[in-house]
């Protein structure tokens, strides 16, 4: 394979990434995330309508008449499927979903099929949100620790910056397009953390190898060589992972759409950041053979 000069774009890539991160953070602060019922609380109903005479606006009207707050009705995959979300009433009896079902069947059609009902109370949703945030923070911290143990702190820093980049950009895109954040997105983010780390580690391992081998080559050159040496692996693994994810996205059904989309974004960002974030950090920290030798000595 041809030798490519990734390092030519280290500077411009850093600027691009910084800008993108700032935009993402701005969106996350100003617009925020579109939390689903898992994290916001409320009720979600997935409905299948087998009656051609009933339109989405019929369904919407019918729900609006029921004195519920914050009703949204959206098509979900097929033409016949709808997702309806609304805030749960403050005082709810154990029969409230059932009353709702029967009045809906009376208003519209008896052939409505309730495919899924989720009702998450405020206490549970705030707990789920908290444990999601804890899980993501904990995983970032664990990665930091692991890389610190396995490499020098400079590498640890570079890997974490790359991770933050991937997570923030993925969430940023979810914010820009108002895509729903639910429990499976947290799973996706954690997997992205794992995948991005995996990708970074492979390149870092090679950088460390090369640092041991070559005394006179500067880290700027050396990181480029390392990227090139691992490039075909980077491409193949990203491709096979993307192929798998794409097939989930296209054929895995509506429920996995958000999850697989987040993962696809994460794999793309993760691959990019291992080259254009993780390596430039090493360059700017001026990592040299000394860094590695000190570590080797410590180990002996």
């Amino acid at each position, binding site marked *: 394979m041809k030798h490519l000069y990734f390092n030519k774009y280290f500077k411009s890539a850093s600027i691009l990434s910084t800008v993108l991160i700032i935009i993402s953070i701005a969106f996350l602060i100003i617009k925020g995330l579109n939390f689903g019922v898992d994290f916001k609380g409320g009720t979600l109903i997935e409905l299948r309508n087998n009656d051609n005479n009933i339109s989405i606006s019929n369904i919407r009207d019918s729900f609006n008449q029921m004195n519920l707050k914050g009703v949204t009705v959206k098509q979900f995959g097929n033409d016949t499927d709808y997702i309806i979300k609304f805030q749960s009433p403050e005082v709810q009896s154990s029969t409230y979903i059932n009353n709702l079902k029967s009045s809906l069947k009376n208003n519209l059609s008896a052939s409505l099929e309730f495919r899924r009902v989720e009702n998450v*109370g405020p206490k549970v949703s705030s707990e789920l949100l908290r444990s999601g945030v804890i*899980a993501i923070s904990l995983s970032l911290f664990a990665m930091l620790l692991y890389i610190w143990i396995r490499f020098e702190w400079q590498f640890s820093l570079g890997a974490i910056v790359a991770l933050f980049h991937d997570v923030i950009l993925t969430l940023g895109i979810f914010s820009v397009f108002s895509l729903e954040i639910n429990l499976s997105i947290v*799973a996706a983010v954690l997997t992205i953390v794992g995948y991005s*780390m995996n990708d970074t580690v492979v390149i870092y391992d090679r950088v460390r190898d090369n640092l041991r081998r070559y005394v006179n080559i500067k880290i700027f050159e050396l990181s480029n060589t390392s990227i090139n040496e691992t490039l075909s692996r980077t491409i193949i693994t990203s491709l096979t992972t993307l192929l798998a*994810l794409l097939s989930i996205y*296209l054929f895995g059904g509506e429920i*996995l759409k958000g999850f697989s989309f987040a993962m696809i974004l994460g794999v793309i960002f993760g691959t990019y950041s291992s080259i254009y974030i993780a390596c430039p950090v090493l360059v700017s920290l001026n990592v040299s053979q000394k860094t590695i030798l000190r570590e080797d000595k410590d180990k002996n």
Partner: protein
Amino acid sequence: MLYFSKIKIILILIISLVISYFTLSNFVKFDDEIFKRKINLGLDLLGGSYLLLEVDNNPVITQKIQSKSLELKKLMKEEDIFFNNLVLINNEITFSTDDKSKESLIKLLDDDDSEFNPYYPNFKSHEFDIFIENNNIVLKYSDYGLVLLKNSSLDQAIEIVRRRVDELGTNEPNIVKRGNNRILVELPGLDDPARIKNLLGKTANLTFQFVSQKKEETFGTEKIKYDGDDSKDEIISKRIIISGENLTDAKPSMNNQTNETVVVFNLDRVGAKKFAKATTTGVGKQLAIILDNKIISAPTISEAIVGGSGQITGNFTFQTATDLALLLRSGALPAPLEIIEERTVGPDLGKDSIKAGVISLIIGFTLVISFMIYKYKIFGFIANFTLIVNLFLLIGILTLFQATLTLPGIAGIILTVGMAVDANVLIFERIKEELKDENNKLIAFDSGYTKSRTTILDANVTTLIAATILFFMGSGPVKGFSITLGVGILTTLFSVYFIARILTSLYVVKNKEKEKLI
């Protein structure tokens, strides 16, 4: 790295075959006890209801501290301890004493052998914390005492919930504790949980009390409304004749004379005696049947009921009578339950999800193996064979441990397919590099394996860390994802380092003279 002893090869083969066998047991019927295992499908694939209930412990605490304060009063009178102004405020018992009694009081309450306030040496804590300022005493539940109380009320509640769910005859319900005040109820195959929610939402405290006739009652009176009709009420004597605890059985029945649906109940010996006495002296009086502080009915006693059984009338349908009988049989909950999370998936959606999951697995798998053959030719076959073994191992292990497979779990399997080739790719690429400077093919292959080992380990440990954290922090379907992802990494490492390596070494040793191997 390329050399394998015969024993090692046989061992690897046996392990792989045995685990793969479990994969098959999902599709083929085996009669054998061990090989009958199947993967559990999560509620999102099977369809069913998931309910999270929270016990409201406040009434239990209040009740308990009330009875404790009565007990304390009695105890102090017996022991001749002076006390004054004993009151309950915010679930704390406060009173004052004098200097003389103080010492014996402290011995009574704060001693390690105290019967009133037991000491738990394991937790270095009494049931109650005692605060003494001058001669004012405050008794308050200690943190451990509170945990103990909550646990016992949760244990009772879970027992009652189990009885009620079992009575409904749902298919393999799963009822477990969550934390110290929650109960998780999973009901596979149930797509309409309305009835069960209705049953679990009731405490089912049943009492029989007289409707008050005179204004002055020794036990006091209270106004109680009728069930289903808020405008009607009765003044009820606070004296409880019998309660739900005295019931030994209850079932719905038809009253032949009135053609009404009723609930017939039997009483235990103590209950029968009390009931007989009350109905003998109370002929002509109205006896109210009260459930959860609402009057079901208040029939007039026409004759003494001495047989130890009776019937509850009320405007029952057969369904409501059945439910009431069920509630009475299963007993009262120690505290009210609130449903704080509910997720119900219909059976059709579950089937659709399985179909979509399997289709995307097949497509993803085909894409990945085609790509690998295109890229690596003969080594692509090796990698693909490894991948197939890997899938068998993964599903086999999930079956062996009877893990729960969820829709995100299927996604985890597909993702494993995509990521599992990574280890083989790392090795093959390293070998290619080694072949550039090394003429001896065997040495090149060997060092390719050796040199990529730490990288592969590091790279997989990171994903394993993420999966582990997700396993402990996640819930429900997401937990299923973390399981398949985590187990997938382990089976990947096994299949790459044993299966793929054996195949590679066999191939390389045979074809080492070939010009271009990989």
